[in-house]
């Protein structure tokens, strides 16, 4: 009797007493990321905005205008500040655009950090791991570039020591970093993207995941911004080698509420701008000069815009297929980079050729007339830049273009706003082209604030 009891208790105890007892996961959906799939999951996270880019700067460009009522209706004080280029922009200590970009960098750093510890079995997993590493490098480079475009002064080769932003390459959060120089930031951006080119796959199942072409496209975009025209041209040419083709706008239905499909054939890499209320407001109007610049037979006017009656036109032509504004890499931007960099490299004829190839797909064949390739370099550049503006409207490029083109007195532009009888002016190369660093970074990280 006694022995029986004793054994019974020991049996009960043993059932609890194995080493694995305390190793049970407290919640099934929790993981310590340790497989390639886990890392892939971190990079695929749309809800945490891995495929987002900044969205506020658009309100400061000359592509848009609104009425006093429209401005009030945005119900966003930072948009109201950014519209008239106020000294103070953000209502609180944070900025969504800053936060999202650095979250992308953090996720990329976590992935790159963990990738070193993962043991892969088989070549499929090895390939997958390489691609995920490439994705993380791509994301880190792209996100840092996004921050530079908003929170650092435009890059100039003469003044590379100007202030850039914070470079972070490790996930350790206690590793304190201050602002690096502009030059160091671009070196970091280009190094990450160039390394990514070698790791990324030529094709991917989803345009939300970067490919080699996406990395080349991003490099082309960045090299154009910092004036490396030869590299921009080379990178863009690499994209063309993948055999992508332009859409024929003649085949598109302009009666649809949103003219384009998400993931359409021109999309190389999908990102959208972090949503702001002004993105989809019907009181956000397109600059009337821009509207007037579309010639007869240009389908873009019908596909990009919806007439809102007397005041003007609203935008409806996002490559994201809905009210989200597409800001990723698409083939039309690549053609424009090829055209501009060719002309900048004094290959005017070649540049006009690329432009004509693009325009041909945008026009009614009956009304299309190719642009003459006998223009001077200056004239050709002006034509190409105008076409760039008409083609890449609401794609998040205009703010960046204004910043870089203002360095050239020939291309510089003064922006004006008229609101309730008050005139606001943004001079070329104004310090207001650089948004203030979020106050939280100043207080907690001791960063130097941008002077506006």
């Amino acid at each position: 009797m006694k022995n029986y009891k004793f054994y019974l208790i020991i049996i009960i105890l043993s059932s609890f007493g194995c080493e694995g007892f305390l190793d049970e996961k407290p919640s099934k959906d929790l993981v310590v990321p340790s497989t390639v799939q886990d890392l892939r999951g971190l990079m695929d996270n749309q809800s945490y905005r891995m495929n987002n880019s900044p969205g506020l700067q658009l309100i400061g460009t000359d592509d848009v205008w609104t009425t006093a009522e429209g401005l009030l209706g945005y119900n966003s004080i930072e948009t109201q500040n950014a519209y008239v280029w106020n000294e103070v922009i953000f209502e609180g200590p944070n900025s969504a655009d800053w936060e999202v970009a650095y979250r992308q960098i953090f996720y990329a750093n976590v992935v790159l950090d963990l990738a070193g510890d993962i043991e892969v079995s088989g070549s499929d997993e090895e390939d997958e791991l390489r691609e995920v590493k490439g994705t993380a490098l791509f994301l880190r480079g792209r996100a840092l570039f996004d921050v530079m475009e908003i929170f650092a002064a435009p890059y100039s080769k003469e003044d590379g020591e100007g202030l850039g932003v914070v470079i972070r390459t490790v996930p350790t959060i206690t590793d304190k970093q201050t602002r690096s120089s502009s030059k160091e930031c671009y070196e970091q951006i280009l190094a990450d993207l160039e390394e990514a080119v070698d790791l990324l796959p030529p094709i991917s199942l989803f345009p939300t995941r970067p490919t080699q072409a996406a990395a080349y496209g991003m490099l082309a975009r960045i090299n154009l911004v910092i004036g490396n025209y030869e590299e921009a041209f080379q990178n863009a040419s690499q994209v063309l080698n993948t055999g992508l083709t332009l859409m024929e706008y003649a085949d598109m239905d302009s009666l649809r509420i949103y003219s384009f499909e998400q993931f359409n054939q021109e999309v190389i890499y999908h990102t959208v701008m972090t949503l702001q209320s002004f993105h989809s407001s019907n009181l956000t109007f397109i600059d009337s000069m821009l509207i007037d610049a579309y010639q007869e037979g240009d389908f873009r006017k019908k596909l990009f815009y919806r007439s809102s009656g007397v005041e003007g036109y609203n935008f409806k032509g996002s490559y994201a297929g809905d009210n989200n504004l597409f800001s990723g890499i698409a083939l039309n931007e690549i053609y424009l980079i090829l055209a501009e960099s060719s002309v900048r490299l004094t290959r005017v004829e070649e540049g006009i050729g690329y432009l004509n190839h693009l325009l041909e797909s945008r026009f009614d064949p009956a009304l299309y007339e190719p642009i003459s390739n006998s223009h001077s370099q200056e004239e050709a550049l002006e034509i190409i830049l105008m076409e760039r503006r008409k083609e890449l409207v609401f794609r998040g490029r205009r703010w960046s273009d204004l910043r870089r083109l203002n360095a050239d007195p020939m291309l510089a532009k003064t922006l004006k706003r008229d609101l309730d009888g008050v005139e606001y002016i943004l001079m070329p190369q104004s310090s207001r082209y650089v948004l203030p660093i979020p106050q939280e970074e100043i207080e907690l990280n001791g960063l130097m604030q941008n002077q506006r």
Partner: protein
Amino acid sequence: MKSSYIFLLICYLIALGPVVGQENPSALVKGIVITDADELPLPGASVLKKGSLSSAISDAKGEFFLELPIGNHVLVVSYVGFQPQELEITVPTSETLQFRMKVDDLLMEGVEIVSTGYQELSKERATGSFAALDQQLVDRSVSTGILDRLDNVTSGLIFNKDQGSAGDISIRGTATIFSDAQPLIVIDNFPYDGPIESINPNDVERITVLKDAAAASIWGARAGNGVIVITTKSGKKGQGIRVSFNSNLTWIEELNPDYVPLISSPDMVEVERDMFDRGVYASRERSNSKPLLSPVVETLIALRDGLIGAEEAERQLDYYKGHSTRDDMAKYYYQQALRQQYSLGVSGGGDYYNYRAAVGYDHNAAGVVGNTDNRITLDLQNSWTAMDDKLTVGLGLYFVESQRSQSTQLPQGISSPYLRLADEFGNPNAIARQYRDGFTTQAEADGLVDWKYYPLQERNNLTNTRASQDIRTNLSFEYEILPGFTVSGLYQYWTNQTQGWELNDESTFYTRDLINTFTQREEGGLALAVPMGAIADQSWTKAVSHHFRTQLSYSNIWNDRHEFVGLAGFEAKQSDTNGGQDRYYGYDEELAASQPVDLANRYRRYHNNALATIPYGVSHTGLADRFLSYFANASYTLDRKYTVSASARKDASNLFGVETNMKGVPLWSAGGSWIVSEEDFYGMGWLPYLRLRATYGYNGNINRSVSAFTTAYYLAGSSNYVTGLPSLIILNPPNPELRWERIGITNLGLDFESKNARFSGSMEYYIKNGKDLIGDQPFPSSTGISQFRGNFADTQTQGVDLQLRSKILDRGFKWTTSLLFSWVKEEVTSYDVESLPSSYTAYGLGGAGVFPPPLTGYPLHAVFSYEWAGLDPDTGDPQGISEGVPSKDYTSLVYFGEVEDLVYHGSGRPTKFGAWMNTFSYKGFELSANISYRLGYYVRKQPLIYNNLYSGGTIYGDYAQRWQQPGDENLTDVPSFPSSQVSNRDTFYNRSSVNVEKGDNIRLQDIRLSYSMNKTTVWGIPFQRLEIYSYANNLGILWKKSDSYKDPDYQLSPALRQLSVGIRAEF
């Protein structure tokens, strides 16, 4: 793990050792010591054979065994506070000797038995800090839930009102920041994981609250917030059959929807007219998403567009001005709630078998029409003794079935104060919700289903039920292996299952809205992506836990002056919870059939053409808890005067990502007590009882939200609206330095009682030092996170708990009074980082605050505000102070100032609180009234948010007091209505010092009136005892410091008055 086996092996080897035989003819005598009044077992009573050294001490169940030679003897049982009992016996005897101990009126009021969940002790021998609620106090108030009954009768325990969650309890302040701050709840020896609503108060015998390290450290890593030990009723040995019945009815007053003032309908109409003229609605009017515009704005649009004339427009506006939606709410939704409670129990006990069987039924009709909940509880407790009382086996079963049904949902999306829910005949009115009236009318004409919302039609017509079954089974054995040595084992199986069922049929707005939203415009007409028919959501959870404990205890008394009680054991817990949710579209209730929908592809939303997937409505959860603990405690008493105690415990758990060597935490405590009045030199005859106590030790806290590794969780593909790919979210950056939270507690106590128990009480002083508390440290977002959770904070809480009781009159008319007073001071002693000023000013709004970040040198719940410089006399704008001068740069004021410049008010939680209860009785009548007080804290007023008006909402009633013209600044502090949105203006005003005031208040909490009779007082009644009682709760505020609040503890919804009547009978 291995060491535990060895330990247990030793225990059992001792346990199974041969019993040494006796040579002289003698026999074992068995007895039980109980209190005469309550029949509670009295552990630790000393049993002595008169004129010899043979003695025994009663165990936790009040039982004792004594080896005596054959023959006649006299046994003397004595216990401090009771009259000694003598009994002549003849050995051998098979009878269980019963000693009913009568309270020594000259001394103590009675003895309190405290239960730690591991053992039962007389409070007399316990060194730690306990608050005990006996049966009478548990039964004093009337409620469906058990925890409510602790309010205002438990020393050191307070219900917090600052976080807005009901039942948020602190025992002796808060010693944690982000870990679970609620006390551990133990029911019948084991921590209870289920919903506390499952426990029927009628089945509860008593409650012990463990407050200091010595009392609670036996619960180790989960005891940092104190422990509430609930002991349920059971049959008593030698009791005879007893039937008890209790029933009561409670009425709760109807909610007054006007309790929180809101802008009046005429004001709102004027506000909207003004904003319309300023073009505020122009953008929304033209938005692609067709957002809702209020009826007033629609009228003004119609007037502007010439669709109606000015006269008609004015008529319509007057119509809106003349009505308040809240009147409709009162008329159609709120009602007096009624709660019914019935309980019937049978208990009894003989020499070998004790039992209790009880059934309880609760039916509550809620304060909203059509919503009810029910609870049935079934309680069966059995215990058997055998082998000369050496073996006790217990089997208990507690079963609860509860059901909640909500057939009414309060109207949703009501953003105007003048909407009419019914027409003049009381028929349901259509209300535009989400989208503009014109848009929904057109949509219906275009072939969609009706897109209007009829709140009254849905009243009483919804199907939303939730049922749960909770089963708790206990199996225990206790065996005395050697005199004084007892080995015991306890096992508990618990399971809780819930099933939820929510059916939104085609007539509900929810379903019609979803069908319409996903109606696709296709060539040739419309196509439905969400089928017609109901949408049904089914949810379930199933939790199962196994608890196992084994312990060896030893108690002995020798030479009549040494007493030792000790135990050591091992405990394991395994708990798993799984759950899920499913959704069915196109559900047909009659056929129980549903239809598939395409959840993978994205569809255009009808109103704005944005792409979206049909809501998936499926989710899964799986949680697991594992605990292994080793524990020991012992106490030794010398000469019944000096007691020392010590305890130790080690806990290990499966907390995620904690390094293996950190999975366990050792905690310990030590203490001592001294009955000064027993000393020969003690000469204070007026105070015949005086005892000093002191303890020190550590408790712990558990935090499930942190990890030493990079932790992430999986998001189902459904949340990834672009690609539908599963993805991961990082929860935690790695934190290799993660440690367990520990709380060091010092407790000093003094118990005393005057002659004739006229005046008695206790006073305790404690210091709690929280070490390595988990806190959030703000990080700049360039790190990729905004805050990081780690062991950042140290806190210190000190306080005093005072309990006084007095018998003021003790003749035919009795008057007793008892006073509870607690003082608590919490301070953050170290916290690495300072946050931005705005983080500190966010907390303090009564009922809806957020937890502030800790700041060194201030309480954990500190109320801060911005310095107020009055209203601008020209504009009525609020003004702050920046660099010594009035400023209206609100963004700088709110975010970019210095923390040192903030105004510090004080704690947001009461620092002094307690209750004063007076009880009067005469013959069978008893009247008791409890007055509670909460002092020394600050509350922020309801916010006034003008920006809400700009985004289409309403505003708090202070709007009527706003600044309107120069000169008003002398009459009011409420800012003017700004003509455009101004950054942080509302935030500054709402968090400024003008909006913080003292919350101090005294209220008449409750009154209880009862009449009871029993067989001895009223001849011929068929009851042992019969009590008729009435109880009124939440009677109102007697005094408050500030007139700015209706009730500082209930800003968002009132404390509703309750009245109960009931009857309790025992046969």
